[in-house]
């Protein structure tokens, strides 16, 4: 363990922790024991902060640890994160302004609220809410793994055989995160997001300019990586032929083209179904702000791509780690002066802590609003609601911990991709509902159930060299032994087919379609129009 790096890390970490707890006191309007205050930071966050929160969502352990790890390990499809973050913005441009409009006219705070208002279907709304909570857990798990590998590279923890000692850094990270969210709610991560983003941009700019220059330039890096991967494939030819090892490559072969684009498209469609990203988008001031942001945010994708390539830089720099996720922190340790390595570690850990806190709060709000209030206590007091959300935010993090401990931690990106399989199944009800009321509510429910069941079953059956189940995001296309695709897109296709087949049948059979709260003009309403609420009140409207 390097004393200087550790000292700088601890200093920055304590700084934001103090800031976080102080945030609970700062600009406190009323008491923290209401959902409004705890879960939405008292609201009043404008466009600028919303932009920061949405942009900051992209720079998490996903970008710093999970994506570069796949490139370091020679997974040919790892760079899919770049087309994913290109495709996502035109998609946002098209459908999210409509969700903003209808939500602000009817006071919908979650996608489940919208689904209930549109289809008058509590089962469908509950399915959407539960899926949001479930899918958030592996995404948080990815953040925990990200924190863990940084702590390991710093030399905190040990190689002990006891699983408890070995996972100690993970438990420490978990405890800090839990304490933090429980006491301060959303206002702490919102305030810390500024410090986090400043640190992260500093580290990114330095890392993508300074390190490749140190190592001999990008041309040299790509040549070295090609050589290293082809050496690996030659030396392990027998194991690869026997299926015990995967061949390494820098770009997808013909057989992996479908895997590459389905991973990109599936992830892009999934991103804005997650509860935490919907909250961020709905908190913008007007619908046109969403479109403006959609044209500004691709700037982030450029840095994401360069960060992904740090996986190759690590190979070229001769970084040797058994866990590929340690490659980027190890690269920082090898290449940066100790004090800046400390800054970089702090940036990654805080960059994982903040989104993990935001995600668990969004999932907890979903519980309190769409399940607790719908089924358990129809007229809760503010204190009861805040207590529900606080406790559930803890449970969601325990769920995340279960994902970390039960599934392989070698490629945390698989955790996030598993979440994508689930959350994508809510898309037909939500996005479909933004455009048409033709889909029958029970057809949507059946499609969701079929997609969830088949997607989970397929994911369960994926073996990897390290585990028998949930080993990866790809399966063979039905009736093909060679063409792999992302499970989420397959399950989504089944979901849509079920919806399209059952809707005319249910309509012909005269099964009630439910009342629709919304009118066509609700979907184009903007700030300043009649009945458009400038800020969403989580306790009003649909209560």
């Amino acid at each position: 363990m390097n004393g200087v790096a550790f000292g700088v890390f601890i200093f920055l970490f304590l700084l934001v922790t103090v800031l976080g707890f102080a945030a609970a006191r700062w600009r406190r309007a009323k008491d923290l024991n209401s959902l409004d205050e705890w879960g939405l930071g008292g609201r009043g966050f404008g466009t600028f902060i919303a932009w920061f929160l949405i942009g900051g969502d992209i720079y998490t352990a996903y970008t710093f640890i999970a994506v570069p790890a796949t490139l370091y390990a020679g997974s040919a499809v790892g760079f899919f994160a770049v087309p994913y973050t290109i495709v996502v913005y035109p998609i946002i441009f098209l459908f999210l302004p409509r969700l903003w409009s209808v939500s602000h006219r009817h006071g919908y705070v979650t996608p489940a609220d919208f689904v209930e208002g549109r289809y008058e279907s509590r089962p469908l709304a509950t399915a959407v809410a539960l899926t949001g909570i479930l899918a958030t857990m592996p995404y948080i798990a990815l953040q925990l793994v990200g924190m863990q590998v940084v702590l390991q590279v710093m030399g905190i923890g040990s190689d002990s055989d006891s699983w408890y000692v070995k996972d100690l850094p993970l438990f420490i990270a978990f405890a800090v995160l839990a304490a933090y969210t429980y006491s301060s709610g959303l206002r702490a991560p919102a305030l810390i997001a500024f410090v986090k983003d400043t640190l992260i941009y500093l580290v990114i700019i330095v890392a993508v300019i300074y390190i490749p220059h140190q190592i001999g330039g990008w041309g040299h890096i790509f040549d070295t990586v090609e050589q290293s991967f082809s050496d690996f494939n030659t030396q392990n030819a027998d194991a690869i032929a026997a299926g015990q090892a995967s061949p390494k490559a820098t770009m997808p072969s013909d057989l992996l083209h479908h895997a590459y684009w389905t991973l990109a498209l599936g992830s892009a469609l999934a991103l804005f179904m997650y509860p935490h990203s919907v909250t961020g988008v709905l908190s913008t001031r007007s619908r046109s702000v969403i479109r403006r942001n959609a044209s500004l945010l691709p700037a982030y994708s450029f840095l994401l791509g360069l960060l992904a390539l740090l996986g190759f830089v690590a190979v070229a720099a001769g970084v040797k780690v058994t866990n590929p996720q340690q490659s980027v922190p190890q690269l920082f340790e090898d290449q940066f002066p100790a004090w800046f390595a400390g800054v970089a570690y702090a940036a990654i850990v805080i960059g994982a802590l903040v989104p993990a806190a935001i995600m668990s709060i969004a999932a907890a709000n979903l519980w309190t609003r769409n399940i607790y209030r719908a089924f358990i206590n129809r007229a809760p007091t503010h204190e009861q609601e805040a207590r529900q959300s606080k406790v559930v935010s803890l449970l969601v993090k325990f769920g995340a911990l279960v994902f970390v401990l039960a599934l392989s931690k070698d490629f945390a990106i698989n955790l996030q991709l598993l979440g994508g399989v689930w959350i994508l199944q809510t898309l037909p009800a939500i996005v479909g509902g933004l455009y048409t009321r033709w889909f029958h509510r029970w057809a949507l429910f059946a499609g969701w159930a079929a997609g969830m069941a088949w997607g989970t079953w397929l994911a369960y059956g994926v073996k990897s060299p390290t585990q028998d189940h949930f080993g990866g995001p790809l399966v063979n296309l039905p009736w093909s032994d060679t063409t792999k695709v992302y499970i989420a897109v397959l399950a989504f296709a089944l979901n849509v087919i079920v919806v399209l087949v059952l809707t005319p049948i249910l309509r012909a059979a005269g099964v009630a379609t439910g009342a629709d709260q919304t009118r066509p003009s609700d979907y184009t309403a903007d700030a300043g129009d009649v009945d458009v609420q400038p800020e969403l009140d989580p306790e009003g409207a649909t209560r």
Partner: protein
Amino acid sequence: MSSSTRWTIVVVLLLPAIVLPLLVGIYARSEPDLWGFPFFFWFQFLLIPVAALLTTAAYQLTKSDPRPPENENDPVETLR
């Protein structure tokens, strides 16, 4: 410019930003390289500003779209 023309242009602008990055077959190769970057990588980096420009152009078009809607039953109304 009529509203339907405007929204048709918006879709035409956004379509390549969604479709091009997904056509892996057109860019999954090494040559020609640029500043040491294989084609596969620099082409995808190039797509980022291209997509940003297309989305910005689409935003400028929608910003000047007259509101309120002229006709709620107009099919382009579902894009707004």
